[in-house]
C-alpha cells in the first residue's frame, strides 16, 4: 500500500518541480510582498483621494511646498534607482567592487532623500502643520501627508538599511547577484511608490 | 520520526496563565469605569491640613435667598413618545427643568457653596447621597455631595435608563440600569462644580451634581432659600451656580455665632 518506493529519476538536486516559470522562491516572495505592500499604499492613496474629493477647502500646494525642492528630492530618488540598476548589472557580471560602490551610492541617495524629507517635514511643522491641523486649509491634508509620506519614509529608511547590508555582503562575496537583485526589486518598488505619492500630493 | 503530541498545548497554557493574572486585577467587563482618579493638585482632591473640628460654641451660619429678575424663559416641553412608559407618565411631554422660577421670582435649583476660605479636612459622612430616576426624570435635579462620598443611583422606573456623567476632573461613567430597582454606587473623587448627568436613552433627562471637598454647600428649594450651617467664623467667598444663568460670587464675613445674610439675583442673559 505504502508506495514510497521512489523511481530512479529522483536526483538530489531536482527534488521538486521547477518553480513558477523558473522563478526562485525568494524572488517570488519579494514580488508577493511588493504586491501586498502596493495594495497597502494603494489603500492609503485611495483613501486620500476619497477624502480629497469630498473636502471643501483643500490646500493649494503652491502655498505649502517649494516645487523646485520637491523636484530635486524626486530626482535624487530616481537617480538612486539608476545606480541600483547599475549595481545589479555589476553584480551579475561578477564585478564585486562596482556592485559595492553602486549599492553604497544608492544608499547615499536614499539617505539624501530622507534628509530632504526631514527638512520638508521640519518646514511644515515649523509653519504649524500637524497630524490634526493644517494652516493652509483642510486638516485632513496634514493627516494624510504625514501618514503617507511617513509610511513611505519608513520604507526608504528600511531600504537604506537593507542596502547597507547588501553592500557589505556583496563586498565580502556573501551576497550573489540574486541578493543584490532582490534588494534592487525592493528599492525600485519604493521609488515607484514615491512617484505615485509625489503625483498625488504635489502635482494633482 | 516525530510525533505531534499533546505538548503542543504549551502555548495555550501560557494564554491561560495570562488570563488568570488578568482576572485577578480587575472587576470584569463592567460599564464605565469608576476608578477614583488620583487627586490632582490645586483645589481638587481632599484638602490637606489638620482635621477640622468645628466648635459649636463659636460657629455661625450663612443663609439667604436667590431671585430671578426679568421675564422667565419659556420652558421647553419635550415629547416622550419614543418610550411607552415615559409617554404614559407624561402624555403631554416633559418639562426640561432648566429654569424653575416661582411666582415671585424665587429661583430653585441653584447650587450655593463656599468657594474660598475653608481649609482643613472634614470627616466624610457615611451615608450615601441618592440620585433617583423616577417618572423619567432625575430626582433631585441638582444635588451636592462630598468628594469620596458614595452616590447611590437608583432606577425606579419600569424602563431602561442610562446614567452618563460628563465630568472634567472626575472619571466619566456611562452605564445602563435596565429595570426597576437597579442600583449602583459610585464615587466622585475630585472637587468639581458641576458635573452634568444625562440619560442617553431619554434626551430630556439631566441632573447636576456639585462635588465639594467640604460640607458647606446647599441647593435652593422652590422658595429660593438656602442655608449653610455650622460655619466657623471667618471670611469667605460664596458662589451661586445656576445651569442656565451662570455663576455669581460674593465675599462675606461670618461672625462668631452670627448669621451672615446673603442674597443673589440672576438676570435674563
Amino acid at each position, binding site marked *: 500500500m505504502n508506495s514510497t518506493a521512489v523511481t530512479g529519476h529522483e536526483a538530489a538536486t531536482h527534488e521538486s518541480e521547477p518553480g513558477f516559470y523558473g522563478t526562485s522562491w525568494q524572488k517570488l516572495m519579494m514580488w508577493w510582498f511588493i504586491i501586498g505592500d502596493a495594495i497597502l499604499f494603494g489603500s492609503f492613496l485611495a483613501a486620500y483621494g476619497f477624502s480629497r474629493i469630498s473636502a471643501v477647502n483643500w490646500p493649494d500646494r503652491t502655498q505649502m511646498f517649494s516645487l523646485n525642492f520637491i523636484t530635486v528630492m524626486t530626482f535624487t530618488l530616481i537617480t538612486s534607482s539608476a545606480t541600483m540598476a547599475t549595481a545589479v548589472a555589476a553584480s551579475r557580471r561578477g564585478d564585486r567592487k562596482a556592485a559595492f560602490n553602486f549599492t553604497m551610492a544608492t544608499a547615499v541617495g536614499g539617505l539624501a532623500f530622507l534628509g530632504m524629507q526631514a527638512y520638508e517635514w521640519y518646514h511644515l511643522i515649523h509653519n504649524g502643520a500637524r497630524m490634526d491641523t493644517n494652516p493652509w486649509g483642510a486638516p485632513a491634508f496634514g493627516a494624510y501627508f504625514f501618514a503617507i509620506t511617513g509610511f513611505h519614509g519608513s520604507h526608504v529608511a528600511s531600504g537604506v538599511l537593507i542596502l547597507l547590508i547588501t553592500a557589505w555582503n556583496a563586498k565580502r562575496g556573501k551576497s550573489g547577484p540574486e541578493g543584490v537583485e532582490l534588494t534592487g526589486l525592493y528599492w525600485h518598488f519604493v521609488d515607484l511608490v514615491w512617484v505615485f505619492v509625489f503625483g498625488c500630493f504635489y502635482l494633482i | 520520526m516525530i510525533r505531534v503530541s499533546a505538548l503542543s498545548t504549551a502555548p495555550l497554557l501560557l494564554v491561560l496563565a495570562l488570563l488568570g493574572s488578568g482576572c485577578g486585577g480587575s472587576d470584569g467587563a463592567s460599564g464605565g469605569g469608576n476608578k477614583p482618579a488620583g487627586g490632582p493638585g490645586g483645589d481638587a482632591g481632599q484638602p490637606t491640613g489638620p482635621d477640622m473640628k468645628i466648635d459649636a460654641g463659636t460657629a455661625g451660619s450663612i443663609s439667604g435667598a436667590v431671585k430671578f429678575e426679568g421675564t422667565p424663559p419659556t420652558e421647553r416641553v419635550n415629547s*416622550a413618545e419614543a418610550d411607552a412608559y415615559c409617554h404614559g407618565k407624561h402624555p403631554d411631554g416633559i418639562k426640561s427643568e432648566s429654569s424653575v422660577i416661582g411666582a415671585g421670582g424665587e429661583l430653585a435649583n441653584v447650587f450655593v457653596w463656599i468657594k474660598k476660605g475653608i481649609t482643613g479636612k472634614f470627616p466624610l459622612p457615611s451615608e450615601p447621597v441618592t440620585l433617583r430616576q423616577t417618572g423619567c426624570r432625575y430626582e433631585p435635579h441638582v444635588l451636592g455631595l462630598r468628594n469620596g462620598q458614595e452616590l447611590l443611583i437608583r432606577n425606579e422606573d419600569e424602563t431602561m435608563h442610562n446614567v452618563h456623567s460628563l465630568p472634567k476632573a472626575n472619571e466619566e461613567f456611562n452605564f445602563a440600569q435596565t429595570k426597576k430597582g437597579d442600583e449602583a454606587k459610585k464615587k466622585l473623587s475630585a472637587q468639581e462644580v458641576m458635573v452634568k448627568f444625562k440619560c442617553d436613552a431619554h434626551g430630556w433627562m439631566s441632573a447636576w451634581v456639585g462635588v465639594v471637598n467640604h460640607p458647606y454647600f446647599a441647593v435652593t428649594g422652590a422658595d429660593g432659600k438656602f442655608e449653610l450651617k455650622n460655619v466657623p467664623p471667618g471670611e469667605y467667598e460664596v458662589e451661586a451656580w445656576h445651569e442656565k444663568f451662570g455663576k455669581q460670587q460674593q465675599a462675606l464675613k461670618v461672625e462668631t455665632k452670627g448669621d451672615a445674610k446673603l442674597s443673589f439675583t440672576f438676570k435674563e442673559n
Partner: protein
Amino acid sequence: MRSQRGAVSAWLLSSLLILATILTVGAFFVLKWRPEVASEHGRGVDRMITYIIFAAGFIFVVGHLVLSTFLVKFGGKGTAAYKPMTHKTEMLFTIGPVVFMVAVSELGVLAIGGPVWNQVYTHKPDDLVVDITAKQYEWISRYPGKDGKFGRKRPDLFDDQENPLGLDRKDPDAKDDIVVRGAVYLPVGKGAWFNIQSWDVLHSFNVPVLRAKQDAVPGLTTHTRIVPTAVGRYEISCAEICGPGHYRMRGFVNVKSEADFAKWLKSQVGWFE
C-alpha cells in the same frame, strides 16, 4: 456489516435532509414570517423577496432531493460504477447551472428590484421633506414650518435638553422649524423625502413595516423616500450598532390621514416661536 451500517447512515441523513426541507418550506406557510407592509415601495420589496423565495426555494428543494436520493442510491452497498462523463455532458453540467443562475438572479434584480430601488432614491418635487437627526440614542424629526425652509444646524449650539438640533435663534429659517423628539408624522398616500443625518456615530433609520432602512452617517446627508399606504403607528428601530443603548433607540412613525396630518401640523409651534 459495514454496508449495513452505511445504509442506516444513508437513510438517516437523507430522511433528515428531506425533513429539514419540508420543515423549512412549510415554515413559510405556517409562520407569520414578515411584518405587514405599509408603503408603496415596500410592496415592491416584498415582490422582490417573494421572487427570490421561489427561485431559491426551487434550488434548495431540488438540491436537497438530489442529495438525499444519491445518499440512499449510492450509499454503502455495491461497488462504485462511476464512468467519466463525456466532455459534452460535462460542459452541459457546467454551462447549465451558470446560465440558470445568472438568468434567475440577474433578471430578478433588473426586472423587479431595479425599479423599486430607483423609487426609493428618487426625490419627486411635490414630496413632503422631513429632516431626521439621529443621536445616541434618539430620533429627532424636523419639519420646515411655514416658510418651507430648514434652518442651519450648528454643532456649537447643541444642547441635549434645550436644543437637540443646535438651531440658531437668530436664523430666520430656523425660527418656525418644527422639532419632534422620538416621532415622525406622515400623511398617508403622499410621498415623503427624508434627509437623514447623525450627530455622533452611525445609526440606521429602520422602519420594517415601511420596508425603509437608511443609515444615518455623521458628516453626510443620506436620503430615502417613503410613500405610506396605511394609517398607523410604526416603530423605528436603529439598525446599526451605536453603543450599549442601541436596542433602546426607538421612535415612531405616525401615519395619519391627510386631514389629521394637516391638523397635527397646525397644532405644532415653531422651535423659537
